[in-house]
């Protein structure tokens, strides 16, 4: 099981306020699918408008990146810039 951390705002919408959830996944693609299955709408929200940070590195378009139980995984809004 991997631990996925969410912002409190996202958690209030999709996970009944839980800012950390556990799912079974070996990469981000599987993680997003598992989150969508367990928390309907969350996976879609991640794909549309969120980034995933793994071990402190923010990935705007994550897909096949490996994750494991030791990974620090955080879901946050996409970041651009001027």
């Amino acid at each position, binding site marked *: 099981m991997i631990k996925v951390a969410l*912002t409190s*705002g996202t958690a209030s*919408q999709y996970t009944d306020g839980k800012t950390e959830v556990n799912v079974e996944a070996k990469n981000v693609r599987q993680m997003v699918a598992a989150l969508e299955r367990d928390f309907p709408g969350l996976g879609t929200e991640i794909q549309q*408008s969120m980034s995933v940070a793994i071990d402190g*590195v923010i990935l705007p378009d994550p897909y096949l990146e490996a994750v494991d139980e030791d990974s620090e995984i955080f879901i946050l809004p*996409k970041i*651009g810039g*001027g």
Partner: protein
Amino acid sequence: MNEQPKQFKWVGTRTIRPDGVDKVTGRAMYGADLTLPGMLEGKVVRSPHAHARIISIDTSKAEALKGVKAVVTAADMPEAESKLVAAGEAMINFRDLAENVIARQKVLYAGHTVAAVAATTNDIAERAAALIKVEYEVLPHVIDVLDAMKDDAPVLHDHIFTGGVKPKPEKASNVANRVEFALGDVDAGFAQADIVIERNFTTEPVHQGYIEPHAVVADMGQDGKVDVWCSSQGHFMVRSFCAGLLKIEMSKIKVTAAEIGGGFGGKTTVYLEPLAIMLSHKAGRPVRMVMSREEVFRASGPTSGAAMTIKIGATKDGRITAGDATLYFQAGAFPGSPVGPAAMTAFAPYDLENVRVVGFDVVSNRQKVVAYRAPGAPISEYGVESVVDELAEKLGIDPIEFRAKNGAREGTKAAYGVTFGTIGMQETLEAAKATEHYKIPLGPNQGRGVATGFWFNIGGESCAGIRINEDGTVSLTEGSPDIGGSRASMAIMAAEVLGIDVTKVKPSVVDTDAIGYHFVTGGSRVTFATGMAVVDAAKAAVDELRARAAKIWGVDVDGVVWEDGHAKPASTNVGDFEPMSLAALAAVANKTGGPISGHADINAKGAGPGFGTHICDVEVDPETGFVTVLRYTAVQDVGRAIHPGYVEGQLQGGAAQGIGWALNEAYMYDKDGKLENAGFLDYRVPVASDLPMIDAILVEIPNPTHPFGVRGVGEVPIIPPLAAVNNAVAAATGVRFTALPLSPPAILAGMSAKD
């Protein structure tokens, strides 16, 4: 791993800018400089109303005018689907993008496009635009962000129901979205505090203020192929948006990035480009469109103005126990303010256990906001850094020491949830404290302010091509429009890897047909991400050069190394061969396998976060309230400066823009919601004579994920100035101001209230 500094020949040097001569001699081609045979001039008809329903548009008189070749209204444009796309700092809805380009049923701000016309001359196009009759039903409007949130406010969009809340509201609202970030227990944190300061702040929207207005030439052929030449921070973005808005296949649109006279985030979307293409399609001739300065102000995006409440608690010994912020951001006429990044960055410079930030994205009858350097961060960090400074003052602790005590370090869990890797927050504070500037005594009515700033920095898609020419020179191609001297940095990095003189490398930003997709030039990503692609492409070319030498020598390629621009035997065991230079290998390339090149197409990851600390000295005239900036120092962790001159320029430019934001710039609307100061005379940005020389100090804590240690540098320097100036004015006057800009009347009023 990073290369070691001692190995560098070109990285860190101040080479001549490849585009410099063209720019100082007037040879450089900007957006409005292209002229094509048969080209028409396009003009836009804009709404005079802040909020109105379009009843009818009569174009008949305009179309009948001699010389008019095409008129476009929303009826000519395909209906856009509701779909999220990346645009600068945020995701935006494609339907909103389409309706910002040209209004369909309602106009949502004074200046909103309702029609466009193309004619043989500018004069005829202007007369034709005046002949287009638009009948409106004027609706109540709302400008202020807090007014727009009231229950009785005019609602701009009946399909917007506040997102980010549960359950979904039943009533449409101007509050498009709510975001929240929280760590720990803020109430418990405040309970531990010996001192708690809470302040309400406001900031005004400010324009990016690029010197070159939006400009485009579009030419659509009878076969449906489109050529676009424009001033943009992302020609691939222009291709993508125009293809989506006009339902044209991407491969049929070629976009060339003209030289660009500034963008700062403001050119990460489209305004004129789809109109010019549609006019060209209807007229069968090329069309040029150029915004006037007034149109730039009335119709292109500033960044948000905001209202916010900041509350921070600390112990007597200077440890922050909790931070709480509520942010209300103007989005303009469509959702998409940078309140998300503002919320994430607000407390990011600090190592805090208890943090909560709530943000609201609010639409009103203003120009749609668009990215501006470090979107959102200058606003929220202005509030936080002002309160942090007040806490330090009240606790009697040096403001730099107070920040250092609470500042983020490697391993700190940022307030937005991510654990920092290698960062330079503490090092910028140390460097700032060590400056002579920080020690200079101040005189009467003078004050010194300090502030820090944080920005994430980003990577993203970039490509690069290295082609070794027959004479040993190198053509370097990439696709990131060059706003801040990036071609020089690309040439430096290529020369460093190839081991040749930097003047032998000619960098070019090529069109969308000539190279793979690039994300926009924004987010401080180009020297990092496109630079990474250039390094990879150069390394691929080196591998091919080694392979050619191996062929000539009849040895295995592993027996050939590349050093100082030459192929050499890896050891004496390989054989006794004279080193071959890049030029020598290029000269025989046709005999050893054909042209030599290297390419890279990447989605760069691992952009290193950036931190900066600024010091500002001001003198406030007690008679007039006028603020003179006496001294200014910008310190920043830049990872590694590939071209220090251009990095210093980024710091100086960001500081100048931030000082303007703090002291001068604001949008002023009349009672009808029409912008009153749509020009540089009344919207005053700082000019050279307003500012002292800005000292730039580069701290280099290399980013471990970039081959040369690069971090983005363009966003951070605009963040600290707002609070640095505010804190300096507070020190000079004894008044803690909470509204920007710090205009002389506002300062006089504040000083009078104190007395």
